[in-house]
């Protein structure tokens, strides 16, 4: 280490109790007049700053602090102790309950029904999102073309009971076995 680095470490080592330096630096000070003088100046600093270590609260000030503090604590009570421990239990429980509720209500209504996992070519519809009510609503709104491709308008009409079973056989050819099975199960149909 050069003298510049030594003097920086000397500056870092000064406290009101004295100078904290390593044995290596102490050895250097014994052989370097410049750094020795530099360290000596810190003793002047310590002597000069010593009065600031004598600052104390007066008895009157202690009374003022405690009285004011008690008044402010009384004005804004904080519940502690048992409720703190209770929070350690209730907060994780509340978070877990919120996650469960979110999962339950955010998922599609018939999530709990096992359905084939394929979807239609229409982005807005998938098998597990279709109900007979959806089909009826879509038809009554005149939006039959929004139905998934495997359920065309005629199929939808049949499925919602607007056609006789025998009249819909030829239009069900495009519906796969899995789709048929799903339709029968979830729309309560007998095809």
């Amino acid at each position, binding site marked *: 280490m050069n003298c510049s680095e030594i003097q920086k470490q000397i500056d870092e080592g000064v406290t009101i109790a004295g100078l904290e330096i390593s044995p290596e630096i102490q050895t250097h000070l014994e052989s370097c007049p410049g750094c020795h003088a530099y360290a000596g100046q810190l003793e002047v600093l310590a002597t000069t700053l010593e009065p600031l270590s004598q*600052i104390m*609260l007066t008895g009157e000030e202690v009374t003022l602090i405690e009285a004011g503090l008690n008044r402010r604590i009384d004005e804004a009570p904080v519940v502690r102790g048992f409720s703190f421990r209770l929070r350690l239990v209730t907060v994780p429980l509340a978070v877990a309950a919120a996650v469960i509720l979110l999962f339950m209500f955010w998922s599609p209504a018939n999530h709990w029904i096992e359905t084939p996992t394929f979807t239609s070519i229409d982005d807005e519809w998938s098998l597990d999102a279709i109900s007979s009510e959806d089909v009826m609503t879509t038809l009554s709104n005149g939006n039959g073309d929004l139905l998934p491709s495997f359920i065309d308008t005629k199929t939808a009409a049949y499925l919602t009971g607007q056609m006789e079973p025998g009249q819909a056989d030829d239009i069900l050819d495009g519906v796969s076995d899995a789709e048929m099975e799903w339709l029968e199960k979830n729309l309560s149909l007998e095809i």
Partner: protein
Amino acid sequence: MMPDEQELVDKAQEGDREAFTALVRQYQNKVFTFVLRMTGNREIALDLTQDTFLAAWQNVDGFRREAKFSTWLIQIAANKAKNLLKRSKWEQPLSVATPEGISSSRPDAEFEWNQKQARLLGLIGDLPVGQRAIFNLRYFDELKFGEIARIQNISVSAAKTQFAEAVKKLRKWLGEI
């Protein structure tokens, strides 16, 4: 932490006001002298001391014993002082309270003694706020640089550099007086 202090902190965390009051009595001078050296104003230091202990009472649940209780208190005090100084735009050198307002523990304190303290507080008040805090924490409170770095939310090397800069400035200013 001394066993009796640990017991006091445990009780304070349970809501025991007497235990907390005992902690206040143990550390109020330490907190007061720190904020006085930060602000140079005795009345403001008294208010900040109260603010510090109020915040400590309200948040003692959050004390995790990763550091000493006194270090945690000083951390609160340092933040309170810095926020006040920034709000008041007191990063300029402070006008120090009159020597009559700065008493000392010496019952026979003379005017000259008080005058010295006032002048020195003014010198320290000339340091930038962050450097002032680091200087006070290291020089007067003798905290380790690791603790100071945690309180100031800086690196240990930055704390050492800032402290050395403060020492250099004070050394120069005192030489010019």
